[in-house]
């Protein structure tokens, strides 16, 4: 099988003397979700519409699954490519079921087969078939209509789907939920999706690769992470937005998110540990020696399991195997370590001295602060480990 689902080779489009797309080349690998993004008039929609020949290029070659689109019958080509538009474009005089089943019907599929397919797809997009199949588009909310729009694009099981700002006319809540839905679907269906948007948040959230366009040219084509790490020029920085660079999770390290730890010495009894946890409202204590060297963790779990034995001390029950991180561990690795650990992570220096602890609450606090525009690098010092309850 060929590697690229869609490939542009030096494609240009102009209307009279006015160039809209200038000599662009890029390729979309099979199963990738690529967003075309840029300010209005940058040629992103024109680029998209050349794929299913709604617009014909002035020059250059466009390959779909390795075959020049000019050699394909436009009607057949379009039926093999899903298409979702911003205005949704459901036919108001047809039921939801008839709308979804339209392309299979045009392809003269068996009626029973395409009605079953419509039912499957309604299920897939989270609309109850029994309730919705015989409704009309006019009876649905915008969000529900666009769900049907997506289902319709999937009906003939195309490998490639083109989406032209599909969610930008929706209210923010529907938009979020449709984006999540698309990610979920893409996780199982692995279609090749070309997605036009002007919304950087949307692009960052959905894309495997982002193609950033300006004045009909590609400015930068990269993964969201690479664009954040290495914006090519001022335009990219501006378009992506300073805020996003600041809040980009990779720029934070464990030191940015850690908070002061509640410590206990290894010789203390378990009743004392329980008392301290209750007073400080935490569910885990860092065990340190007199020089603040880290020894282990005693959590509610260890204490309650061994509480019956009055002679045991913290040193006897503490957990020494919890993952630890250093102050400059990048946040993604911190979060990964937290997944495998307890929901709190000791932060140590090179001499295994305890510097603080990262908790779920302290990570969330960082996110909140960056959103408010506060300095991300200021340390949080709320002085608690994980809040109880």
């Amino acid at each position, binding site marked *: 099988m060929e590697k690229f689902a869609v490939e542009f080779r030096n494609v240009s489009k102009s209307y009279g003397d006015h160039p809209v797309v200038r000599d662009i080349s890029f390729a979309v690998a099979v199963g990738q979700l690529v967003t075309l993004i840029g300010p209005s008039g940058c040629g992103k929609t024109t680029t998209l519409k050349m794929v299913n020949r709604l617009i014909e290029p002035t020059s250059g070659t466009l390959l779909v699954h390795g075959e020049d689109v000019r050699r394909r019958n436009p009607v057949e080509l379009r039926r093999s490519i899903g298409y979702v538009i911003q*205005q949704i474009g459901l036919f108001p005089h047809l039921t939801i079921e008839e709308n979804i089943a339209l392309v299979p019907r045009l392809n003269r599929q068996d009626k029973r087969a395409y009605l079953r397919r419509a039912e499957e797809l309604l299920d897939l997009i989270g609309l109850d078939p029994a309730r919705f199949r015989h409704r009309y588009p006019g009876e649905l*909310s*915008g969000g529900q209509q666009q769900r049907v729009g997506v289902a319709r694009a999937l009906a003939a099981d195309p490998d490639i789907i083109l989406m032209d700002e599909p969610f930008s006319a929706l209210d923010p809540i529907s938009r979020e939920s449709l984006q999540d839905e698309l990610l979920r679907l893409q996780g199982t269906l692995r279609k090749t999706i070309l997605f036009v948007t002007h919304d950087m948040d949307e692009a960052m959230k959905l894309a495997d690769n982002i193609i950033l366009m300006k004045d009909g040219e590609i400015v930068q084509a990269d993964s969201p992470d690479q664009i954040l790490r290495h914006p090519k020029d001022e335009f990219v920085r501006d378009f992506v937005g300073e805020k996003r660079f600041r809040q980009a999770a990779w720029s934070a390290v464990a030191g940015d998110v850690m908070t002061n730890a509640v410590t206990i010495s290894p010789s203390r009894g378990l009743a004392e540990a329980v008392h301290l946890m209750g007073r400080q409202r935490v569910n885990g204590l860092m065990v340190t020696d007199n020089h603040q060297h880290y020894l282990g963790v005693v959590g509610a779990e260890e204490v309650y399991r061994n509480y019956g034995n009055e002679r045991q001390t913290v040193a006897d029950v503490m957990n020494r195997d919890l993952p630890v991180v250093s102050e400059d561990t990048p946040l993604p690795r911190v979060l990964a370590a937290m997944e495998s650990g307890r929901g709190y992570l000791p932060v140590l220096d090179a001499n295994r001295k305890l510097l603080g602890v990262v908790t779920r609450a302290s990570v969330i606090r960082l996110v909140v602060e960056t959103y408010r525009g506060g300095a991300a690098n200021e340390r949080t010092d709320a002085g608690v480990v994980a809040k109880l309850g």
Partner: protein
Amino acid sequence: MNALMQALSQNWGDLATALGQHLFLSLVAVVLGCVISVPLGVYLTRHRRLAGPVLTVVSVIQTIPSLALLGFMIPLLGIGTVPAVIALTLYALLPMVRNTYTGIQEVDRSLIESATGMGMTRRQILWMVELPMARGIIIAGVRTSAVTTIGVATLATFIGAGGLGDIIMRGIDMIDTPTILVGAIPAALLAIVFDVLLMWLDRWLTPRGLRVAARSGQRRADGNVTVETADIRRRGA
């Protein structure tokens, strides 16, 4: 009233014939008009540069006084049913051509775009999207044409094509109002009956989805929120 009943019984035999002729003239003209106008209107949406000139010509025909139009037929085609039908057909064109053209023009562009993008052929778009969506406006044109044609058909008597005009003219010649009414009232009733029949046809042909869309515009505006929150709750749970 008595005089009217008397006139009616006197003209009874003629009335049936005249009504039959009148119906025939009008029906043939409207049906022929439809057969010409709707395809012509569709053609114009495909060749928009022709739309202006063609619509102008059709409008000019409409501005010719109906009596004169019937008169023009005499040197060309003589007298009788054929020239009358042709004149009436020409007269019926404008509302139907114009409404077909604008009806299709006004179909939401995004529907055409998504239809094309899904891989529908021009013909499929016409039959499955444009005509169903423009149906209401096209039938409104047919109704206007039908009512006008039934009225104008009363003049067909002047070129010897018969119809209710015969009775009306006889009444005028005899300066006898009841006889005029015996011709005029059925003509008016005929127009009303046709209008109502076409209105029913329109309702019957309106796809349920379009009726729903028209009705629920308001309801959807406030129903929206509840539906969406219910969805969120379900997902959250």
